[in-house]
């Protein structure tokens, strides 16, 4: 006979909601931020079973007085830190200029990385220039940190005749083989398992180069995220898998991606993979965590999942208005501050920097961006891209098949 449960209570579904919505005062009181410097740094070949506290910890190096403290403090010279500051400021100036260019109708679309510059720049600095990067669309700082010409990036955004991608991609979907940066996709997370495949190939070949890839907190829900972790774990691929938890996936807060009950770094635990959670606005901490993961990968000790805890200070894109779904003042009150401001204060504290040098540098990067944009705009803007029409059919296949030759002929004749 069938068994039935009596007096069962009505079931309820939980629909996650962020703590604050427009009109509310921002409140980050529930955030538990451990002090900087308190977390021991394990050896990079440590067994994963000894690392399972790290996904719930937070690697922080810069303390409230702007000093670099603790075992995770990276061995970075002050000169290198000044370069990092410059790369972050150039990234921000670039973002501001391209946002304005989009508003003036010179580009169809743009994505800023404001507040997340340390993620890209410090991570690029912690990797070897020959390591292969599979970024998402908010890590333009990787290209800038690797010295890729910003004119080239601008031409891609303006989709003009100087764009080496021949005007084919949505603005910000860069590709820079020479800089070791893989072609960006507009589909979320697809590059994550591809990076694992690249790393597997590097290991199959006995190469020394590792791969790194980036997704946002929202994309951790995609199957590709889990494919990446499965394959990286199974084959111990030399790869660093980064989750940039900037709290927002367009209008959905991180809870909608499953961030309420566990950290994103903790996804690593189920895969038997090292997981680190790091203050993403702390240049030194980001560098340290990435360097640890890189050393681990190079030692054939496996992949690392890094959650970079940060805040998306800008809109998702030029098509988005975050005031419709979160308090306007939230970004300014992010308890982990601004990455540029924090590194600047640290350098001033170390007597390697000053407010006047900061102002001079600001003028310098602004002028560099202005000059580059003038140069890029001379090669066309959206609507007047000056892209060769015949190029429409190139690169679909390595060689042009007969049916595309026929279609090209038709375009030539009929327009």
């Amino acid at each position, binding site marked *: 006979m069938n068994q039935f449960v009596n007096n069962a209570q009505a079931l309820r579904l939980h629909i996650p909601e962020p703590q604050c919505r427009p009109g509310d005062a921002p409140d980050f009181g529930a955030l538990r931020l451990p002090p900087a410097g308190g977390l021991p740094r394990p050896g990079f070949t440590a067994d994963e079973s000894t690392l399972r506290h790290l996904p719930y910890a937070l690697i922080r190096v810069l303390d409230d007085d702007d000093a670099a403290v603790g075992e995770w403090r990276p061995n970075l010279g002050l000169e290198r830190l000044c370069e990092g500051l410059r790369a972050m400021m150039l990234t921000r100036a670039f973002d501001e200029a391209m946002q304005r260019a989009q508003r003036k109708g010179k580009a169809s679309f743009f994505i800023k990385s404001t507040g997340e510059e340390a993620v890209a720049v410090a991570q690029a600095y912690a990797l070897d220039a020959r390591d292969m990067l599979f970024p998402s669309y908010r890590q333009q700082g990787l290209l800038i940190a690797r010295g890729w010409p910003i004119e080239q990036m601008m031409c891609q955004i303006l989709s003009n005749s100087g764009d*080496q991608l021949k005007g084919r991609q949505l603005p910000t979907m860069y590709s820079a083989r020479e800089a070791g940066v893989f*072609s960006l996709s507009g589909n979320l997370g697809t590059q994550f398992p*591809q990076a694992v495949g690249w790393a597997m190939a590097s290991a199959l070949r006995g190469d020394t180069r590792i791969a790194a890839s980036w997704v946002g907190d929202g994309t951790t829900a995609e199957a*590709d995220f889990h494919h990446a972790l499965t394959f990286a774990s199974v084959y111990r691929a030399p790869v660093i898998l980064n989750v940039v938890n900037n709290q927002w996936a367009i209008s959905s807060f991180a809870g909608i991606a499953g961030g309420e009950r566990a950290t994103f770094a903790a996804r690593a635990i189920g895969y038997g993979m090292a997981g680190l959670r790091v203050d993403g606005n702390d240049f030194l901490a980001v560098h340290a965590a990435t360097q640890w993961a890189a050393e681990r990968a190079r030692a054939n000790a496996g992949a690392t999942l890094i959650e970079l805890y940060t805040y998306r200070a800008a809109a998702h894109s030029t098509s988005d208005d975050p005031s419709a779904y979160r308090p306007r003042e939230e970004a300014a009150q992010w308890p982990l501050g601004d990455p540029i401001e924090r590194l600047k204060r640290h350098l001033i504290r170390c007597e390697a920097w000053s407010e006047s040098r900061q102002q001079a540098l600001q003028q310098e990067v602004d002028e560099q961006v202005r000059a580059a944009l003038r140069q890029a705009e001379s090669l066309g803007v959206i609507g007047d891209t000056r892209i060769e029409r015949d190029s429409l059919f190139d690169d679909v296949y390595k060689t042009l098949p007969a049916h595309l030759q026929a279609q090209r002929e038709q375009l030539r004749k009929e327009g």
Partner: protein
Amino acid sequence: MPVMNMIQAINSALDVMLERDDDVVVFGEDVGYFGGVFRATAGLQQKYGRMRVFDTPIAEGGIVATAIGMGAYGLRPVTEIQFADYIYPAFDQLVSEAARLRYRSGGEFWAPLTVRAPCGGGIYGGPTHSQSPESLFTHVCGLKTVIPSTPYDAKGLLIAAIEDDDPVIFFEPKRLYNGPFDGHHDRPVTPWSKHAASEVPDGHYAIPLGKAAVVRPGSEVTVLAYGTMVHVALAAVHESGVDAEVIDLRTLMPLDIDGIAASVARTGRCVIVHEATRTSGFGAELMAVVQERCFWNLQAPIERVTGWDVPYPHALEWDYFPGPDRVAAALKRAMETS
């Protein structure tokens, strides 16, 4: 000359390419130590080692994604999707990534991967082990789609696919693995050894992608078929006594449009046969191409013989399957119309 069935021919192609090119790696579910559920990779891990031939997790999206990454690195991955019916989790990686990588990167990156997948029914596979999803891939610019019908072609086309620098979907009609099945499911199985195309050279040879083959010359009607349906069409032609020209397309994308048009222009009639469901099937594209190129030569409406627009059924699979009787009926209709 060695005699091979289609599985042995595919195994031989992989063997030749693993031997010739260090960049070739072969992987998929159960393909390593075990040699694949259909045995297509049998013995290859033992011969080339686990760094060249290996098992993967059950994650088709992950298999194709990692293959794309390996391809971008410079390897030449050959992956197996255990059944074509399982390819959908990899659809995004194939359509949005492999197919578009060269284009979207302005030619900076490409993914020279080959995705092998057994397709088609007739083995009591039911709805999830019998599908022919080729038209989902021929619709995607940037991909090439190949379907062989004999051991000789399977080896030559697979080698060409592996050597190709574009991503290739390589569908293997699993009902043809062991013999040239002509649709008469109630008759004894004919082995490949009695068929001329089972003579397969041991070494390297490639059959160019994009070239159809005339497998039976004829003057009265052109039959366009691929995979299992080539043999079904040949049986129907033989049984109906029509002097049909049977063309095995072999590659659906790129399609041998000139070869098709030349034949239909001569015969004036055309019957299209495929095992996949009808609506938006590849037959629709073939009808459009024939109409565009041969309208003034046509003496009868173009016929198409396909699977019905239903999921591939288990118990009633032979009622779904477009067998020789249905092909013969279409030939008759095409010949009756003046």
